């Protein structure tokens, strides 16, 4: 027997019990919005902190410092770092942030030697608007990450103020690296001179090593070189560095995972409540179906299918809304200049729908089995 012919019956039951369906759907949508948002944050943490096999960048920071404002290293460390075996190049970076605290709207300036930056990063980003030539030409020019540009409404030719720096937008860049999403790359000297006279002082070095297998040994060698220096260093693979700096945020996102689980429990309770009430109010209706020849299993399947349809509809609304908000808002959790993007996409919608479908089945299982096991004749006596 084709189950497809029962789908219109299920849809009629769902759409024609409008108030019940809408109230349940609304609740599920809110819970799934929360769940998907938490998933988006967790996904961002994974993208920003999980190392991959082709990661070959180290970050050299001032030892025992966690904030760009306090990590000050002499720029001439660059020469000594580049002498270490396995190091391809070291790029001095001066970081200035508009807000040292955790925030959804932080602008991070990264002052870099332009030629070295382009040599190091060519092929790792694309310019979606504006031009690199314009960036190279002007001292105050910046290449702005796509997320930041979207959030602040920036486009080439505009100027913007943040952290006491006024910069010109020469181009907008798109990159897979989350640390590029929320930054404005400018010339090193421009950032060093903006507001403070910090010429010769940098926040960190981004060190490119020959191969991923050499990351640890090169990091140890760099720290050994500066162990007794006035400004000792602490060197980490780039994503481990992000994890270290953004530790508090990552912990909070981890805790938010429990909120996500709570949202799922809420979805389960909402669907179960809707199904239980529906089954209780339709005892005789289900008995009629069985009298007409529907088997117990068919009645149970119809009840579960109703739960799944409501769950999927609510889940779709909530998940799509969460992804849309994340997409439009272009949010990123930033701390100490490191960015944890809130990453939402079609994959999260699919996950949300899958979870909701599963919860719909789970929530409907017990009431459906109970309803299908009732003695038909006793159902009519009970009415």
């Amino acid at each position, binding site marked *: *027997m084709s189950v497809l012919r029962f789908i219109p019956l299920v849809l009629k*039951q769902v759409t024609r019990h409008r108030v019940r369906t809408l109230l349940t759907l609304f609740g599920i949508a809110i819970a799934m919005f929360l769940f998907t948002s938490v998933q988006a944050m967790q996904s961002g943490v994974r993208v920003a902190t999980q190392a991959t096999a082709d990661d070959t960048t180290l970050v050299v920071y001032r030892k025992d410092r966690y904030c760009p404002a306090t990590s000050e290293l002499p720029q001439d460390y660059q020469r000594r770092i580049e002498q270490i075996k396995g190091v391809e190049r070291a790029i001095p970076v001066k970081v200035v942030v508009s807000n040292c605290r955790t925030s959804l709207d932080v602008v991070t300036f990264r002052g870099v030697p332009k030629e070295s930056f382009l040599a190091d990063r060519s092929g790792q980003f694309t310019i979606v608007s504006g031009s690199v030539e314009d960036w190279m030409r002007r001292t105050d020019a910046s290449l702005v990450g796509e997320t930041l540009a979207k959030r602040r409404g920036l486009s080439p030719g505009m100027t913007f103020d943040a952290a006491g720096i006024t910069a010109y937008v020469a181009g907008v860049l798109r990159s897979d690296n989350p640390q590029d999403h929320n930054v404005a790359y400018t010339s090193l000297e421009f950032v060093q001179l903006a507001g403070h006279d910090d010429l010769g002082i940098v926040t960190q070095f981004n060190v490119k090593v020959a191969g991923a297998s050499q990351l640890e040994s090169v990091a140890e060698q760099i720290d050994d070189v500066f162990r007794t220096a006035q400004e000792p260093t602490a060197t980490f693979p780039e994503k481990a560095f992000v994890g270290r700096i953004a530790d508090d945020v990552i912990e909070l996102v981890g805790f938010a995972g429990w909120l996500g689980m709570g949202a799922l429990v809420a979805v389960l309770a909402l669907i179960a409540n809707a199904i239980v009430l529906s089954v209780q109010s339709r005892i005789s209706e289900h008995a009629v*179906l069985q009298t*007409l020849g529907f088997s*117990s299993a068919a009645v149970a399947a119809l009840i579960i299918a109703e739960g799944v349809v409501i769950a999927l509809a609510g889940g779709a609304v909530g998940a799509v809304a969460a992804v849309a908000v994340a997409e439009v808002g272009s949010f990123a959790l930033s701390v100490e200049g490191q960015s944890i993007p809130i990453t939402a996409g079609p994959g999260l919608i699919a996950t949300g729908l899958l979870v909701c479908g599963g919860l719909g089945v789970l929530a409907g299982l017990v009431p459906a089995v109970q309803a299908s096991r009732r003695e038909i*004749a006793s159902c009519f006596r009970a009415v």
Partner: protein
Amino acid sequence: MSLIECVNLTREYRKGENIIRPLDGLDLEIEAGDFLALMGPSGSGKTTLLNLIAGIDSPTSGSLVIGGVDISSLSKRRLAAWRSENIGYVFQLYNLVPVLTAFENVELPLLLQKLSTKERRARVGEALEMVGIADRHNHYPRQLSGGQEQRVAIARAIVTDPAILVADEPTGDLDKPSAKSVMLLLQRLNADLNKTIIMVTHDPHTTEFAKHTLHLEKGRLLEQAGVAESGVGEGAGR
């Protein structure tokens, strides 16, 4: 051979410490094409007998053979399939699904059969036409009168062309004109389509439309009044 054969049919329920026996060793044979009215006081076992014949309840003991099939031995799944093919049930309170239109209610039993959408629609249309409610096919139960709802319920009962129609006080919730109209319809289904009809009723007037009337009391048959034989019911209500 009779269409329905009940031998020593007993149904017991446990209610707390007590055992209630609405049917107590009932013997009964019903011929194909009969229109049988079951009467008796409340608790006499009429509806229990009807439910057993309809396959929605199971006897505690005894045998119930319908069309050569001992339905008390069927599994729940096979019994459901048997009901779908052989039984049309008409309830006192119609029991239409409130969120479905008249058409959709009548279509319900056909969803279990291997029919195309076109065939299903044709069959539903015929059934609604037969009960005289085709013009209301798009109405929801709440938009119909009691008599109209019962007609839809009868259309739902006959749409699969079952051999047996069981009706539990089909006019119990209707005014007199509607009740007569429904009884005439049942009588026509019996006469024209040769449906075997077993009807539970409290109303002596409705028995006039049946071919036979049986009285039950305390789960047993009191008498078997051959209405047609006595001439009282011959053509009654026509």
